[in-house]
């Protein structure tokens, strides 16, 4: 009986120790997180590449807009803003340099499409040859509307099922 009680006491002590350890670990983890968060708040917001942000906030916002619209041709479904591939870094450098040199957005997009083709742009410009891409949603919408109208008209000409039948039964 006493042996049993001693074992119980030991287990309780062990459990308390464990609880303390866990609590301490949790406290440390929370403190660590807080410290990390604080240091992140001190650091400037993460820029899209190693060169850091552009000095001029207007240029920086134009930069971010342009690199989001340029496709990384290695990964093809990522923009060069998101990609870590070396080519994407080279293309970001190119965009920065052209911006700093005072080139317009159109000139930069033109530079890229001259070399990589229209595919490099996520938003192809509205042109005769891209008319189908931009028009397709509207064409499909109109097609759907025509089908709906036709079906509804056809149905409205049909007698209702629960209509009492006319004439002698």
């Amino acid at each position, binding site marked *: 009986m006493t042996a049993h009680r001693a074992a119980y006491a030991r287990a309780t002590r062990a459990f308390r120790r464990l609880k303390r350890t866990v609590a301490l670990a949790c406290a440390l983890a929370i403190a660590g997180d807080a410290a990390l968060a604080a240091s992140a708040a001190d650091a400037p917001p993460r820029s899209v590449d190693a060169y850091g942000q552009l000095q001029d906030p207007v240029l920086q916002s134009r930069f971010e807009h342009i690199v989001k619209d340029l496709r990384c041709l290695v990964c093809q479904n990522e923009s060069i803003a998101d990609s870590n591939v070396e080519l994407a870094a080279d293309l970001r450098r190119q965009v920065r340099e052209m911006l700093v040199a005072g080139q317009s957005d159109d000139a930069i997009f033109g530079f890229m499409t001259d*070399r*990589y083709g229209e595919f490099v742009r996520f938003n192809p410009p509205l042109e005769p040859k891209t008319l189908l891409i931009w028009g397709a949603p509207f064409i499909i919408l109109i097609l759907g509307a025509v089908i709906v109208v036709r079906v509804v008209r056809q149905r409205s000409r049909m007698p209702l099922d629960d209509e009492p039948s006319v004439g002698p039964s």
Partner: protein
Amino acid sequence: MWKFVLPAAAFVALVVLFAFGLNPKRDIHALPSPLIGKQAPLFDLGDVLDPTRIVSNGALKGQVYVLNVWGTWCVACREEHEALLEIARARVVPIIGLDYMDEREKAKQWLTQLGNPYQAVAFDTDGRTAIDWGVYGAPETFLVDGQGRVLYKFISPMTPEVWQQEFLPRIQAARKGGA
């Protein structure tokens, strides 16, 4: 009548679309180059084997040449190397190399160990020449005519078959046109 024709037509259209889109032979990553038919971008870069020697494609004006983009990091380039050596041995056109995103020592080692099919290898240290040529991977092989126009671009490892079917006829046609 329409009830049968329309679904049947839609079905046929889908089959055609899938036959094209799901064709295993079609390389979905190969993009058409906007450079075809235009003047090849010019470069003056140091030779990978000797930085003091300048490799300039402008100096090649008047002759048909091949520009092969490669790097020692590129597995497919290792794969095509035998084919390039074989093509170089035939001495039909000069092959100019563009070593891209690479380290000079590794490139030198590659060329001494595996053999050098190139007349000269331009060393593109910062990737700017590659951007000018619209390069987005390796290997890529361009064919340029005597007037300095890009005739053809092939994306994938070079093989003797591709050389025979795609490059040789174009080289012959370019020479006839140029003469």
